[in-house]
């Protein structure tokens, strides 16, 4: 099977720091790929390179066999790659519906939309409400309430719902459960499986080993700016994975980079 999303030889330098050091990356159709790594290993940079937030200095990214080069997150989104950032990327003072459609607002039909650029608020609100209900993650009464009046879990839910609603090719989740309680985490993990069952592959960045081992089909272990190895959660234990990513142990057939 061909990878849906493939990165080869990705390099990104920030001044003297090399965040990505000839890194490879593969995502296959319909899978949940977890990306784990110690702090500073370059996970975030890798994800940003894929989602268009960072432009790699070298290397190539292919989506469905075609080379892509995003210079902004908007281009990545247009190509069907949605990202839920750890910071959630939401405007706190704006409403849930406004946030879900930020950057891809719906315009009213007819003259009001084409000439006066009027937003189609009823349609946007209906869609937002549907997506949140589908998720069942929260009990939000008012789709027009400001995001800052929501709890952490509810905000996360809105962000995940936004990505799931619009991501047609790939959904990237950066630490989606880090700020959540036990029950809310469970809902998010269920949602991740829901999204996969619709055939959309997911990249999951997480520090939470139980969550990673529970939902991931494959685990990409990132170390010192590159891919150290890819393991299947059935083949190794959580402590093995932690040992690999911290450098305490090396997987078979892999030499420690100089």
């Amino acid at each position: 099977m061909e990878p849906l999303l493939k990165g080869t030889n990705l390099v990104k330098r920030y001044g003297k720091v090399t965040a990505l050091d000839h890194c490879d990356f593969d995502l296959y159709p319909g899978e949940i790929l977890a990306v784990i790594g110690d702090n500073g290993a370059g996970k975030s940079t890798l994800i940003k390179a894929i989602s268009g937030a960072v432009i790699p200095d070298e290397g190539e990214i292919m989506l469905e066999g075609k080379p892509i080069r995003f210079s902004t997150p908007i281009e990545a989104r247009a190509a069907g790659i949605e990202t839920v950032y750890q910071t959630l990327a939401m405007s706190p003072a704006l409403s849930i519906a406004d946030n879900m459609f930020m950057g891809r607002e719906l315009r009213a039909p007819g003259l009001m939309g084409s000439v006066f650029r009027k937003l189609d608020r009823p349609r946007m609100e209906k869609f937002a409400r549907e997506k949140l209900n589908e998720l069942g993650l929260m009990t939000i009464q008012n789709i027009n309430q400001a995001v800052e009046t929501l709890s952490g879990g509810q905000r996360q839910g809105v962000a995940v719902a936004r990505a799931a609603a619009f991501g047609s090719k790939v959904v990237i989740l950066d630490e989606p459960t880090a700020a959540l309680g036990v029950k809310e985490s469970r809902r998010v993990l269920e949602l991740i499986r829901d999204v996969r069952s619709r055939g959309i592959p997911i990249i999951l960045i997480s520090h939470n080993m139980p969550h990673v081992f529970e939902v991931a089909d494959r685990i990409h272990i990132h170390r010192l700016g590159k891919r150290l190895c890819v393991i299947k959660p059935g083949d190794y234990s959580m402590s093995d994975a932690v040992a690999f990513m911290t450098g305490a142990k090396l997987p078979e057939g892999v030499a420690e980079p100089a």
Partner: protein
Amino acid sequence: MTDAKTASSFEEGLKGASEKVAEFHEEKSQLKRLQHWLHQTPSAVPMIVLMVALLVFGVLAENFFKAGTLSVILQQIAIVGILGCAQTIVILTAGIDLSVGAIAVFSSVLMGQATFRYGVPAEIAIVIGLILGTAMGAVNGLLIAKMKLPPFIATLGTWQILLAANFIFSANETIRSSDIAATAPALQFWGGSIQPGGIKILYAVFLMIALVAIMSYVLRSTAWGRHVYATGDDPQAAELAGVPTGKVLIQVYALAGFFCAVAGWVMIGRFGSVSPTASTGQLGNIQSITAVVIGGISLFGGRGSIVGMFFGALIVGVFEMGLRLVGTDPQWTFFLIGVLIIFAVAVDQWIRKVAS
């Protein structure tokens, strides 16, 4: 793949627990409710202050509630109100524009000199003035969005540069009102008025109200308006969510420049003459910022409504007129406006705490 349902054994403990996730049943006090209401209706505070001011002056000064008085108040705030439209969109992006007055005065001088020095027909001179005013605003936008200068510093610079350029270009020369009326009446268009029942209402007043209404619609009901709010609220988040924040900033400052140029055109109508030394050049920025702040628009960006700015400008106008009719020392106006500014910012801080 591991079986999903049994994956995390520690979660066994969840069985039998309530299925509800993070529901909130806060006991809301009256004060909390007020805070939430103000959070959703940012122009409520200035509206209440305006009502109270109208009532107080209505009681204290007997000729206050005459149609003539009210029309003079509207006339007085026409220019500040238009500059306030410019200042509002800038402050919504968490910026500030100190050059609004300078752009207005320079644009009015450009319109006047194009007509009288270079013989351009007045209508075309007006268009030239509007375009150059927009360009001056766009320069502010480029300095802030591309060169990443803090808005305060960038516009502090352009304020001085534009004001000086205005004096140099005009050679400190005032174009007399009678000359304009004779050869280029289009320049004075906004000074015209309708007089239903003997009450004079300037065209400029209608223009200000129309601009506030249009911008209120644009900010609330178009994608661009939402992007302005998002850019001021959290620029990083907006950028990641797909808002081209740099482009939005340049557009906002350019549009602000356009509004300033419109204010410059209105100034010719209000004052009759074209004067490079008009006080708007020095005071326009402070007056417009005052209207915006009293109008409940947050200096931290992303919060407030342009209708609030209109109320803010009206409050200032009502105070000036009311205190004059009551016959107090005019310094009391500034005293009370200072108090109002501090009150408005304190209320803004309190409202923003709703989040935490």
